[in-house]
């Protein structure tokens, strides 16, 4: 989890940078958004992996010559045999669903990033160097 650190350099700033309740709430809001954003990033990574697998699967499907051979398609924990057409359809459906999920997650990510940069500007304006709002980049 990214941390928000507030440290006051008491040697330089003798004017006690007073933290009001509003500031505390802004800091809290920022921390929440940050945590949510990291979670979304994780989800996005998983979904993109899923999409890649589905793309690979549909590519492999194109390589199959025998049109009449049943294709075992994973539903839950069992493989259900479908003919080529149904299997293609199922793959397309699954791909569309994952693509839609990815779009939704990306939209929310952008939303949160805007909120965060907004709060960042406000907090940096008030506290300057006394506050550290950067996420720990791994």
């Amino acid at each position, binding site marked *: 989890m990214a941390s928000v650190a507030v440290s006051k350099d008491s040697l330089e700033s003798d004017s006690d940078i007073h933290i009001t309740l509003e500031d505390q709430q802004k800091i809290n809001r920022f921390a929440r958004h940050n945590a949510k954003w990291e979670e979304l990033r994780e989800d996005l990574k998983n979904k993109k992996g899923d999409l890649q697998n589905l793309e690979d699967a549909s590519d492999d499907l194109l390589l199959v010559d025998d049109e009449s051979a049943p294709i075992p398609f994973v539903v839950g924990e*069992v493989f259900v045999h479908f003919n080529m057409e149904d299997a293609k359809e199922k793959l397309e459906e699954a791909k569309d669903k994952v693509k839609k999920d990815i779009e939704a997650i990306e939209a929310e990510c952008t939303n949160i990033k805007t909120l965060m940069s907004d709060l960042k500007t406000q907090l940096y304006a008030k506290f300057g160097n006394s506050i550290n709002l950067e996420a720990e980049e791994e």
Partner: protein
Amino acid sequence: MASTAACEPIEESLKLSGKKSFAGIPEATFVEDVDAYMKDREGVESILRQLDEQHGKYKFMELNLLARKKKLKSQIPDIQKSLDMIQVLEAKRKTNEQIETHFLLSDLLYSRAVIEPTDKVCLWLGANVMLEYTLEDAKALLEKNHETAMKNLAQVHHDLDFLRDQMTTTEVNMARLYNWDVKRRQALNAK
């Protein structure tokens, strides 16, 4: 005291969001003015220790909530998969076709099976109980479970957010208190 009064608006605004308040998570009092706060208190170290203890408790609660969240997050795809399977069964029943499957016998062992079109399914309810349902009833039950799981997940998220807020507030309090103390010592030494 001024600081607790200042905290009420937060709780009000959170209650207005319609969600019930937070499963036994104590709220951290925000210190508006460190001077006034410390005026009747002696022993900065003991206060810091108290705050540190509080912070530790919050961390522990966070671990609990995170574990619960993980469990819920893993349940939801399972329910989704069962729902998908029911849809497939329904579709096949309409066309009155048999379903040929590779059936999971154990992790590495599958077996071929032929399923006749049917309208009964058995659902595993847990606690070594399995009940037979019609396709429609099974779908309704699974959808209800899915909804409950999503609702619980939302609740856990909500609690986690509040918990994080309290943790951040406590951390900020500790930092300010420590700095205030350092300044006070410097002022004393300068005299």
